Structures are given as C-alpha cells and as structure tokens.
C-alpha cells in the first residue's frame, strides 16, 4: 500500500522517502512526517485501543495532547511504551507496535469489555469484589492488573545516556507560534538574552498547519524567515524539540530537549535527551491553544478527529484522514477546515454546524442548527447520523469527521504554582488570571485567538517583560495577518442514549460524569478521582473542560463555579532517564578514593562502599578462600607485630583562632579548655537534645591550632554544626574552621612493633620513644628525609599505635614506604573488617553504637558530660527520660557455649522470659568473630547492663532463626587495663 491518502503540497520533504513498520507491516512516509501522519497517508486510521473498554481508536489530534494514538516505539532495550504517534518523528527503519490489545489490533479479545460496559460504570469496583474476602487479592485483582496498563517495558536497562544542563536568560519564550516568534524578534533585536523553546521540530506552531498569510507570504514561510533572522543573533538561543515541563519557584523552568529521538539511535557519546534547568528573569508563555471535541454517541471511532488536526494533517503533512470528509463544529474556526480540505482536493461531503446562524461555506452539504448524533464503523468511520434542525435524522457516508467544540488556551504552565485560570465567556474557555511573578502570557494561550492579535500582543508583552528587568525594547510594526474572531457558541455534548466519550483514553463517558454527580462526587477533584477523567497520559488536555461543562450542567452552576482545570507538571510526560541524567548505575553518586587506593588495587584488596568512599575491606592472600581467613590473619598479625590501615576517610577539621580552645570546650561535652599543646584527647560531641552526635580525637598542634577528627560518616554534618555554633551561637568567638580531610593521607600503624617501624620512617631528629612521645601525644614532624608530616599516638585497635599523616599527594608513596619499612616485622595491611574486629575487641563505639538515639550514659561515658560548663546538649541531657535507672548500657557479650555464634540486630530476652516485645531488654549493635579469643563477641545495649556483668541472657534473632545464650561481659575484651597502648 503506498500513501494513497497523500495530498499535494505540505511541509514534508518528498525527496526523502522513509520506510517504517507498524505492527509488522511495512509502510512508506517522508522526512517531516510523524508516525500518525504517515499512517494516515497510508490510509491507516486504526492505531490503538482504549484503556478500559479496549475500543478501536485512531488519532484525535496532531499534537502532544493526543489521547488515543499511543504506540510502542522501537524494539529490544530501546522499546518505548506509550509514545504519541502524533508527535513521534518518522525516521528510516522506524518500527512501532500498537498497544493494549490481544491478539491483534483489529481483533482484541478484551474488546469484550466494551459489551460488558454497563457493568463497568464509573467506580463500579469500589462496590464489589469484596466477598469472599480472600478473592480480591487471589482472583479479582490479578485479573484487573493483567488487563491494566497500556504499553510495556522491555525490562532491559535503558542503553542510552541522558544529559542535564543549566541555562540562564533574560527572557524565556515558551512556544514558537506567531506570538512566540513575534516576541522573540522583539526581544532579540533589543539585545536581550533570549531562549525560544518549541516542542515541535519546526518553528511556527499553527502557522505550519494553516493557510493564512503573514505580510503577504505563507505563514510557514514567514516563520522560516523569522527563524533565519533569530538564528543570526548570538543573544538568541532557539531550542526545537524542547518542551517546557514545569514552572517552578523563582523563575526556574524544567525543559526536555529530545536530542536524538528523531534518529534510529543517538550518535556515539551523544545523549538521547537533555533535561535543562532554565533560570529565566522573565518568561512569556506563548503555548497556543488546544482544540476540544464535542461528545456524541460513538464519537471515538477511528477517523473522527479534531477539526484543526484534520487541517494540520492536510496542510502540513499533506495527508488526508479520509477521502470523504465531514465536519462538525460550533464555531467559525471549525469551518475553515472545509475550505482548506476542499482546496486540497478532499471530498467534503457535509458540514454540520450546531449554530443556526453560522456563516455559510462553499463545500459539501451545509447543515445549520444540526448535530452529529451517532457514528458508525467499528474499526474505522464509515457513516455518521445527523439530526437536522427540523428534528429529522439523515445518514451520510464518510471516512473522516473533523470536530470542533472551540479552543482552550493552553494554560497548563500558568497553573503549576497553583494559580487558577478564569472563565472567558467570549471564547467560552479558561484564560490565565494570575501567573507566576515572572510570567506573562500572549497569543492564543492568553485567548488572543487571531493571528494578528498573537503577533501584536507577542511583541507588546515582550516589551513590557523586558522593561521590568531594565532592558529597552520596541515593538516593530505588526505584519498584516488574519484577524477573525472564532465566534464560538458553547456546545458540549449531544443529548442521546448510548455512550458519548469525554475522556477517550480512560473511557470516561457523559454517563459516567452524570453518575458521578448522582453519587455525590461533584467537586472537580472528586469528579476526576471517581471517574478518572483527565488522569490519562494526556492529562485531560482535550477532556477536562467538556467534563467540567457537563458537571456544571448537572449542578446547575456556572462552569467557573463548578471548578477550574488545574494542571500539574510535567507539561508532557517525561522519561525517568532524563530526570536522572548521568546519575545512574555506578555513576549514581561520585566515588571517593583513598590515597592508598592504587596500592590497594595492586594488592588485590576487596573494596567496600562506606558513604561515598571506597575503602579496602580486606586483602586476600593467595590460597585464602573465605574472607574470614584474610580478616583473621590481618587481625592476628597486627596484634602480634604490626599492621597498617588507611584511615584518611576520617573527617579532619582544622580549628584555629585565639578562642579555638573555648570553642571546642563548648561543642564537646567533655573538657577541652586545658588540653596541652602536643596532646590529643578523645571528645564526645552531643546534639542539643543530649544525644551523642559524633566522637573523635582532637589534637592541639599549637596554642591556637587544633585538628579535630570526626567519624567518616559525620564529617559533613559535624562541620555544618560547628559553623552554626561559630556563626550563630557565638558570633564573636575568634575561631576559624576549614576541612582538611582531603589534604592529609593518614595511616594507622598499629601493633607492638609499630614504633620500631615508624622509627625507620620518621626523621632522626624526632624522638618518638614512649618517654618523649607518650600515649595521646601528637606533633608535627618530618619523614623520609624531610617531608613534613603529622604524628598522633592514638589507638583504635587497643595496641601500641600511631596515626601518621602526610600531604595527600605523597600518600601512595608513604604507603609503599611504610610497607617496605615493615617487611622485617612481617607488617600486614589491614582493611575495614579487621579494623572493625579490633575496635570491637577493644570495646570502642562506632557508627552502630552512635545510632542517633544513644546518650553518653548509654555509651558508659555519662561522667564525661561536664556539668561545670555550658556545652551543646549538656542541659537537655539531664531530662528524666535520658537518665532512667534501667537505662541501656553498652556492654560486651560472648556465647556461653563458645562454638555458638550470634548476629548484630539480635534482641536480648532474659533466659526465663518469653520472646516478645514486653520482655525486650535491648539489642546487639556489633558482632564479630574474635580470632584472639577464638569465639564470637559482640557489643550491645542492655537495660542496666553495667550492673549485670557475669549474668547470662539470650540473644534472640527470630528473623534469622537464631537464639543464643550469651554472657554479659565488659566491652573491653582485649587489654582492659590499656597497658598495650601505653607500652
């Protein structure tokens, strides 16, 4: 079949013939076609099925407001459900499938729903499927779900990439029809920074669909000429295939540029789509208007479409929806199609005008004061029934019917910030009333329905908008153009038994709206929710106003009193991929690598995500098959001799100033004012509510300089908190803060031989003997022959240990030097697992213990909270609820039978008690196997735990089917006296 509905002229490029398939059948179209226009040209009207009744459907529109002609575009992992055939550009090799039908589009078994439609009235499902109880989930719902939905996903990862970007402008113009082009010319010539965004791939809007002339030339030619002038201006950015999705606060607009959707696949490295965030000082909405249908019996037959769409297909795409066409209108604009189609050689067989006094047209039989009351042709229109002014009915054969119920200004974006439009009797439609502060509206979107008005107001509004932001512009002479009113006389639906469709995709009929009223769902919100009117993929762009008008008739109120249409972003449905941009899969969030990362990779480290960081978790040796083997080895070797761990990820904050000590004394609950230079101290930081926020060691490098360490997880919130204290709580303290986390590569060197190892690294003029450099000492030193470094004698493992820091660029080299120096001591690198094991063995609290609900008291540090000073959290930590007699205490646990084990997350239940919430005694926070003790150990919070040493209780873990008898012991499993770290 070869395009036998293809007409003369149009804006398609006949020199480029494109082959495509629809439901496996091959067709031909041209460059400049959409799928819908090409299919119509090939005499294919049936393109989809409706949601609920699976009614056969063809396109209703020629734009993004399309409810019916939705297809699955492309194949394999690029399959794209619910794509509008009316906007999808044709490309060579395109393949599309119809949706929501089985086994085929022309025969759909689910079409039986249509016969059962009386039972499927609005909201029927709320009233049934309740008995027997189990059947809803077992039987009814699975059936409903299987029937639900439109297109389907490929279930494969989307292979394309998406970009995001940010643009700034003085004036954002939304829509490049006559109003938008006129505004862009005015603003562009004034030198303003302009963005002209157009959803279509052509500029011109309706000008491409009409036969009007502007300034003596064809409208589309004027658009092309204007585009050329705009393109020559550096200050104007023309963005075609770009839909403005949403108007957000303070002049921020979301825009989707369909960069590659008109191609078979995006070019290498190029995005499929780009989501732009546009910062606009002023915005002009020139989005035109959307035509609305009139509801009558079987008004959803394929071949019935909006009159303007019929014109668009003929004038722009040179495609006839059918060879014999009728028109049904309540306004003058609807009549234009008659002349245009006749001029294209289409046989216009009838014009039905609801108005008795409408103007006459020289095309086909003209019935005034008449209505179309029915349409025949299940899979494609073949006849319409007309009720004449005199009450008689007559049937006419035709294969296409253009319907016009008037035009709705496209106010979508004006309501994104929840302002409502007002009703304009003159055009019987809603027009913008209030808009976001920076937005003005021009052209048909503002109810200026003639081309001349659009051109004039576009320019005028641009001048005003730019004046607001101090840019002088002048509106040129408005070119000569059509200036006719559309003379609409409201007419919403034809009174008749049988079903007349209002929302075609969701199968909402006039009857459903009447039923909604009957059952008390009368507000717009209730109407929408009860009938699903306007909830389909087109957001009711063609259905909402007629639906509202019918409800208004029911309630006897005016349309504006009944409610207004309220649209929500996005203006057009937008892919997840575009909103996510590059942030997917591994690029979901950036990766932070430690200074020894490269070295660790060379040594087969297994890495683990800790926040954004990748840290070495353990370093498997050849022959080690289970991670525990590696971890146990690392722990034992460290405690026996010496081990090295990259601890760079700990937050480091440089705290300086003459009041630095005072400052620290207030942000830590324990005393810091008198910390001596060259000393380090453990600090516990509370939130104002008295709950532990973070902990770490802080070193005093000089009188006025401290280096604070935070946990890896809290580095950022702690810094923010400190800045709050500095700027808001005590603005006159002389203290300056800056993060130095990244500036220093820091390594823990732990184990009995750590000093010996470091003595080979630290330059000779620095004495790090126990006498000169005791536990909790710190100092600035040099290493490896003169590189400045910092040394801290602190221990997380409980061993004699140091942390050494060098400028990060030398971190890799430092790691290698340490390992080399350690060879004679059989030094091992250890990862976060061994680090964790050793800190649990030592009873140090970490993230699992500092969980945002625990106090100093819970942690066994109650006495640390100084009552002698003001510090963040000290006051509220006195509340009774945080000081109960049986408060949770952090204690240690070991299995009574040492071959048994248990898990973190277990709860404690006393041995004699039943395992239920009432008997809950607390929970296990951290658990590991201790290679030193040869059994599992754990830390946990237990009610009154501190006074229950030696008792036994049960660690119950019903989630994993575990239950273990455990003994309550000190959290310090290793070296409770702390002799090792002082050695």
């Amino acid at each position, binding site marked *: 079949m070869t395009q036998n509905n293809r007409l003369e002229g149009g804006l398609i490029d006949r020199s480029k013939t494109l082959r495509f398939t629809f439901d496996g059948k091959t067709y031909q179209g041209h460059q400049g076609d959409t799928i819908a226009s090409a299919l119509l040209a090939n005499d294919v009207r049936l393109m989809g099925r409706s949601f609920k009744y699976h009614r056969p459907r063809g396109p209703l529109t020629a734009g993004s407001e399309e409810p019916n002609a939705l297809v699955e575009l492309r194949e394999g992992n690029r399959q794209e459900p619910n794509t509008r055939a009316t906007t999808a550009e044709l490309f060579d090799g395109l393949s599309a499938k119809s949706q929501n039908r089985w086994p085929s589009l022309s025969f759909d078994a689910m079409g039986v729903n249509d016969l059962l439609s009386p039972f499927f009235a609005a909201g029927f499902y709320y009233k049934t499927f309740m008995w027997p109880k189990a059947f809803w989930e077992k039987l009814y719902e699975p059936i409903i779900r299987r029937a639900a939905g439109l297109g389907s996903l490929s279930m494969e990862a989307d292979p394309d990439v998406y*970009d*995001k970007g940010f643009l*700034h402008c003085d004036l954002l113009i939304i829509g490049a029809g006559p109003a938008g082009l006129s505004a862009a010319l005015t603003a562009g010539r004034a030198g303003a920074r302009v963005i002209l965004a157009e959803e279509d791939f052509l500029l011109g809007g309706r000008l491409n669909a009409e036969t009007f002339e502007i300034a003596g030339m064809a409208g589309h030619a004027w658009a092309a000429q204007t585009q050329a002038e705009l393109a020559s201006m550096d200050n104007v950015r023309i963005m075609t295939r770009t839909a403005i999705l949403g108007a957000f606060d303070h002049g921020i607009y979301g825009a989707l540029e369909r960069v590659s959707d008109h191609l078979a696949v995006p070019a290498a490295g190029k995005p499929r789509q780009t989501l732009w965030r546009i910062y606009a000082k002023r915005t002009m909405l020139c989005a035109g208007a959307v035509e609305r249908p009139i509801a009558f019996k079987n008004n959803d037959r394929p071949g019935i479409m909006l009159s303007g769409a019929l014109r668009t297909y003929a004038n722009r795409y040179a495609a006839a929806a059918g060879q014999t066409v009728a028109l049904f209108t309540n306004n003058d604009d609807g009549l234009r199609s008659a002349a245009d189609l006749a001029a294209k050689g289409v046989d216009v067989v009838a014009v039905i005008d609801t108005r008795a006094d409408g103007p006459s047209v020289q095309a086909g039989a003209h019935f005034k004061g008449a209505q179309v009351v029915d349409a025949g042709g299940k899979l494609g229109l073949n006849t319409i029934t007309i009720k004449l002014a005199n009450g008689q009915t007559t049937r006419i054969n035709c294969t296409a019917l253009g319907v016009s119920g008037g035009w709705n200004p496209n106010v979508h974006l004006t309501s994104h910030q929840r302002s409502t439009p007002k009703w304009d009797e003159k055009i019987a439609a809603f027009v913008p009333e209030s808009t976001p502060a920076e937005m003005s509206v021009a052209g048909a979107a503002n109810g200026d329905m003639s081309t001349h008005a659009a051109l004039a107001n576009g320019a005028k509004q641009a001048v005003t908008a730019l004046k607001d932001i101090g840019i002088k512009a002048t509106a040129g002479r408005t070119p000569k153009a059509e200036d006719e009113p559309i003379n609409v006389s409201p007419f919403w639906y034809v009174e008749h038994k049988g079903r007349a469709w209002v929302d075609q995709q969701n199968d909402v009929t006039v009857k459903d709206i009447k039923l909604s009223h009957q059952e008390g769902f009368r507000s717009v919100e209730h109407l929408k929710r009860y009938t699903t009117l306007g909830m389909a993929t087109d957001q009711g762009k063609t259905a909402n106003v007629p639906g509202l008008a019918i409800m208004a008739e029911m309630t006897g109120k005016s349309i504006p009193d009944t409610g207004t249409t309220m649209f929500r972003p996005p203006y057009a449905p937008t892919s997840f991929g575009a909103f996510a941009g590059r942030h997917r899969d591994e690029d979901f*969030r950036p990766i*932070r*690598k430690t200074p020894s990362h490269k070295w660790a990779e060379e040594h087969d480290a297994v890495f683990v995500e800790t926040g954004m960081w990748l840290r070495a978790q353990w370093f498997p040796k050849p022959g080690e098959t289970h991670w525990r083997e590696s971890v146990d080895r690392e722990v034992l070797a460290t405690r026996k001799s010496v081990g090295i761990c990259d601890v760079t990820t700990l937050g480091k904050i440089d705290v300086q100033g003459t009041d630095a000590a005072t400052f620290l004394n207030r942000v830590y609950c324990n005393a810091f004012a008198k910390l001596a230079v060259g000393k380090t101290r453990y600090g516990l930081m509370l939130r104002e509510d008295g709950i532990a926020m973070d902990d770490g060691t802080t070193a005093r490098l000089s009188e006025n300089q401290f280096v604070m360490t935070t946990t890896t997880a809290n580095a950022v919130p702690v810094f923010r908190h400190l800045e709050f204290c500095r700027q808001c709580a005590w603005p006159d303290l002389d203290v*300056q803060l800056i993060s130095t986390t990244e500036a220093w590569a820091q390594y823990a060197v732990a184990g009995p031989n750590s000093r010996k190892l470091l003595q080979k690294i630290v330059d000779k003029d620095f004495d790090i003997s126990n006498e000169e450099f005791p536990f909790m000492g710190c100092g600035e030193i040099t290493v490896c*022959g*003169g590189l400045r470094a910092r040394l801290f004698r602190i221990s997380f493992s409980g061993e004699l240990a140091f942390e050494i820091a060098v400028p990060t660029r030398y971190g890799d080299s430092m790691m290698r030097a340490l390992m080399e120096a350690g060879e004679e001591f059989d030094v091992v690198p250890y990862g976060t697992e061994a680090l964790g094991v050793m800190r649990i063995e030592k009873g140090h609290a970490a993230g699992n213990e500092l969980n945002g609900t625990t106090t100093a008291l819970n942690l066994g540090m109650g006495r640390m909270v100084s009552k002698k000073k003001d510090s963040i959290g000290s006051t509220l930590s006195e509340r009774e609820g945080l000081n109960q007699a049986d408060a949770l205490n952090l204690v240690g646990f070991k299995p009574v039978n040492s071959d048994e084990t248990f898990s973190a997350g277990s709860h404690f239940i006393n041995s004699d008690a039943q395992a239920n919430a009432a008997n809950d005694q607390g929970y296990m926070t951290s658990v590991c196997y201790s290679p030193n003790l040869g059994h599992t150990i754990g830390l946990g919070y237990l009610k009154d735990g501190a006074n229950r040493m030696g008792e036994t209780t049960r660690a119950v873990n019903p989630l994993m089917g575990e239950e273990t008898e455990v003994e309550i012991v000190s959290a310090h499993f290793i070296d409770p006296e702390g002799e090792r770290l002082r050695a």
Partner: protein
Amino acid sequence: MLKHSLKPLTPLGSDEPDSTVIGNLKITERDDFSFASIAQRDGKSRPFAAAAKRAFNLKLPGPGQSASNGDYTLFWSSPEQWFVEAPMATHEDIASILKAEFEESASITEQSGGWCRFDLEGDASVSTLERLCAVDTAMMTDQAATRSVIEHIGVFIVCRSAGQYFSIYGPRSSAGSLHHALVSAAKSVA
C-alpha cells in the same frame, strides 16, 4: 622541592598529569600548584592587611572574585577567608611560607594535597560547563571565581579567560569521578 624519598602521585593516580582533547576542548589535569587557605583572625584586620600587602602585593579579591600577582593567585572562599595558590616547584610548603608573613593575624591551613584541578580550554568550555553546573559560566568574566556543585561534587570554578579558559578545583578523592563527568559532558557537545 623538599629533599625526601617520597614520590608524588597525580590526583588521577599516575606519575604524569593527564591531558585529554575532545573536539574543541582541552581538559588538563594540573598538579603543579600548591594550595592553602588563609582566614583573617577577628580584630586583626590591620596586621592582616599589612601582611597581605607584603606577601601578595594585591588587593584581596572580594566575593566571587580572584586576583593574581606574581606567583600568587588568590580567590575568595568565605567571609574573611581566601584560597591561595602558588607554583608547587617554589612554594610546596606554602603554609609555612605564609605563616611566616601573617604570624598570628591569620589562620592558615595547608590544602595542597586536598584538591585536584582540571583546566578547561577552548570554545566548548562554556557549553561543556552548561551541562555540569548551575553557575552562569557564560557570563563569568576574567578572574571571576565561585564555589558550586558538579555532579554532586563540590567545586571551585575560576574563570581565567572569559568563555575560553576555566579551572575547576574539586576534592582530590573524587578526581576520577569529576574527570569522568567533565569528559562525558565534553563528548556531548563535541
């Protein structure tokens, strides 16, 4: 250079800095700069200004600005706080050098290892940055400098030559991710 046996590694993890050309854009990894932050102590504006004059002999740049003189480039980072950049070859120990000048009038913190720097040169600079950052880089004039975010990474953006040449400073640990983001965006516009 200080005499010691340790070898530096570039932020991207090699011995030599990376340089990539994509269409009209050159992305160069820089590790030949040293870096420090300097913050004025409360009530020390006079001695601070004097020391700044001695050390840099330029007017301290205000918010959103940078300034250069001789070896030094400064840019404003926070109220009464600046970042100071100088050649690594001559100023590796930049913190001590500045401390000697400012003594107790300023809080000075070494930042050299903490940051990676990528220079973007060429006509595609702005269209590349457009895809990465909310800052209006097209309107940045010579020496404009600001902090912002690129693909969830906090960065400084310094405009060396309007529309043509920008330096992006990011946290060293994220150098790989930042470079990946720059290269991906550059390919989109190439």
